[in-house]
């Protein structure tokens, strides 16, 4: 297999960002592997393990799919109406390649608008484990590190960051 390029990784992350911002969550699910996971560690233990550390969010693929169902329901009050988000992704780097697995990092800024003109802004870093297959790169794990010392000012993490 030819070496994975940063451009390929960027294409995937940009596509993911667009799908999440546009709330095309079923299409977003198609970017994930069948064993994908999504983690947001707590700010006081960013490198913790979710088996022994209380995370903000730690989903396996089953719960990711349930989360999408919830988010698309009008009964998901925290996201109905949906937040409008706009994420900017940069500083994309490939950190390691092992067989068909690629570890990549990126920085993000995500602006979030909700009714009544509340504006919230999330800054932080993504760490991905991507998997190379016949149909190209897929996301096996996405981990979100939020920079704010405390999540406090940011309120709920009701959408997919």
């Amino acid at each position: 297999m030819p070496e994975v390029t940063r451009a390929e990784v960027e294409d995937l992350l940009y596509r993911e960002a667009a799908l999440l911002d546009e709330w095309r969550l079923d299409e977003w699910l198609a970017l994930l592997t069948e064993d994908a996971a999504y983690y947001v560690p707590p700010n006081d233990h960013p490198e913790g393990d979710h088996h022994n550390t209380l995370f903000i969010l730690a989903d396996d693929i089953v719960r990711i799919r349930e989360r999408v169902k919830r988010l698309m329901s009008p009964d998901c009050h925290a996201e109905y109406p949906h937040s409008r988000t706009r994420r900017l992704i940069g500083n994309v780097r490939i950190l390691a390649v092992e067989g068909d697995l690629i570890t990549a990092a990126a920085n993000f800024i995500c602006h979030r608008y909700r009714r009544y003109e509340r504006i919230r802004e999330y800054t932080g870093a993504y760490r991905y484990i991507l998997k190379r297959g016949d149909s190209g790169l897929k996301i096996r794990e996405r981990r979100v590190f939020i920079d704010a010392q405390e999540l406090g000012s940011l309120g709920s993490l009701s959408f997919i960051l």
Partner: protein
Amino acid sequence: MPRSYIIDDAMRKRFLLDREALVSAAVLQEEMAKIFAKCWIYVGHSSELKKPNDFVTRKVAGRPVIFNRDARGDIHCFLNTCRHRGAIVCTEREGSRRSFRCVYHGWAYRNDGVLGIVPGAEAYKGEFDTKELGLKAPARFESYRDFWFLNLDAHAPGLQDYLGRARDYIDLVLDQSPSGCMEIVAGTQEYDVAANWKLMVENSVDDYHLPSTHATWLNYMANSGVKIERPSDGRVLPTKGLAVDLGNGHFTTDNINFRGRPVAAWIPIYGEAAKPEMEQIRRELVERLGPERARRVADTNRNLIIFPNLVINDGSSVTVRTFFPDGPAKMHVTAWALGPVEESEAARARRLDAFLTFYGPGGFATPDDVEALELVQQGLANWQDDRWTEMSRGMGREDEQLNSDEHHLRIFWRRWNQMMDAV
């Protein structure tokens, strides 16, 4: 001149709350003096300080404090302010230190509070005495079963008396540990809610809102294979639950469980592989506590409020949650997970996973609670023209008070009102 914020009419079975209590900056100022400076306020749990010299810093009732162990292992709470000219003396969030050195002029305090070093101490000629200038502690600092509370009022009754019957429910939560010891798990959840702090008290025990606010969580449970009975007998919830008055403004829900509990009530989300260990956990409960008490521990759940602002949710997992006002329309919430100290790695992982099914800023339920509370606060902008909140549900019910009634909310507000009136 004292005034009442509630209309509590037993005859007409009506209970109304003046919405000014939820929007006013003047009320908040009064609360700081009459409630937060008079009640026992939760500081932290012994297990957060594993070894001698460990410390954490946090804000309690608006006061920056240091919660720590000294070199001998004794637990303290100090006001995090220098006796010289007031600077914060410990700037780190957590760690291990034998002393705290103020960066401003370099006064250094031992971790038992004693002032050890004053650079250039010879310049003080008068009554200056370092023995009188150790770190200040809050007026009172006491614990019940590893839960530490401070009280800013030197004349307050002791913590044991203050907790009163609430201790029985703390004991019941702790009975899920074979040794009776539980610990705070690493990892803190923090979130702000743009709502008055008292709305979180209400929300933490109000089971009336569950079917409406948490419809997507119920859906998630059902999708994962949890059987959720249709409510019957005029109830709004799948199983029966009570609201119990514990005195001194404390109260709890006491519900028959339907949602799965890491302490020995299996649901499919835990996975087939968890079954043998969960059966073992239940056998241990029965052997140690007898079948009746074991059922109480495993097959009932509760949300316990220690007045004014400590919540122990013993439901889908165990949460210790506290919150402080930051203005009349904003609060800062901190939540931890609590687990038995002897829990296996697998059981701990299950507990934390179960926690996230429901609780926290990324859970399947809490964000919708936050939304509901923020919607209340936004609606309250109309308070001057729509003054009274209706809180009569279940009032005058002859038999037991249900968790979906507002009996327990009224207990809170009566106590709150009484304390606000106290001169």
